[in-house]
């Protein structure tokens, strides 16, 4: 359950800071740092979310190459 909550949090941060247009972010009042820095934060959040998803899938399906 804790894993799913973390995935959700990081995925939301990642999607907002990476894909949402700059003007919308500023109008929402969450425009921290510069635009490019926000995209970097978003990208790292997406990486964390993807790794957490891979970890839970790996455990469930026992993926092996």
């Amino acid at each position, binding site marked *: 359950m804790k894993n799913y909550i973390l995935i959700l949090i990081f995925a939301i941060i990642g999607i907002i800071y*990476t*894909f949402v247009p700059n003007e919308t972010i500023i109008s929402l009042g969450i425009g921290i740092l510069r*635009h*490019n820095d926000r*995209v*970097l934060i*978003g*990208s*790292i959040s*997406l*990486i*964390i979310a*993807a*790794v*957490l998803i*891979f*970890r839970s899938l*790996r455990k469930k399906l026992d*993926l*092996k*190459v």
Partner: protein
Amino acid sequence: MDKKRFVSVLLFSIVITILMNSLDMLFHLFEGTTVHLDYVAIKIALIFASIFLTSLLVGLGKSEGIFASILGPVVFFLYYRYTFPTLNRQLFRIDDQLWYVIPHVIFFMLSYWLVFDFIKNKKYNKIIQNVGRGLILTLMSVAFDFIYRMSVVSVQTGRDAEAIARTLDHVYALKLFIPLLILFSLLFILMKRYRSFAAAILAGVVVFIIDKDIIHAILLIILTFISYLLLKKVRKS
């Protein structure tokens, strides 16, 4: 969390990140796309994040390597797509097109394979193993050298993006890469002791012959020595 495992994963991720960026910079110099310090820094951050988090949270292995190798370049492509350009795209061609994800994934996988099979495990016979290690040390020295040269220009020009982007060229890359690869491979094959010192001095001599700059040579001696120690730590951890 186990401190020993954390350090082991950290060092492993650092080496793979340096190798991947070295292969990537060499590829872009020969392919004609710009190698720029800011983009290299972002690439280092994202590649490191993907390999470090995958290794730490999931583990080390083939499937983890494939996953991290795809994740890093894909997120890097997304970063390129959604940021404001910091370099004049009319003058400089950068690797922001979709197809560049493929060479990035290949370089990432190659780096993972090199470190996993040549440093962490001993899968091949002694000569191939030593040539592989020579290649890894060469790529690390080349990466540090490129970053040093771009940093110097960055400081000298007050972070002039266009001057930094013009710092490196494929002729310099070739002059540095080929002699270092031959010398380091021979060194790993022929020498049993004092390899770290010998490799560092050889790197310094090669750079001094090419660049005629003593500070540059001394710095590369230090960085090659550090690279060797890093590889040794990764092997032992």
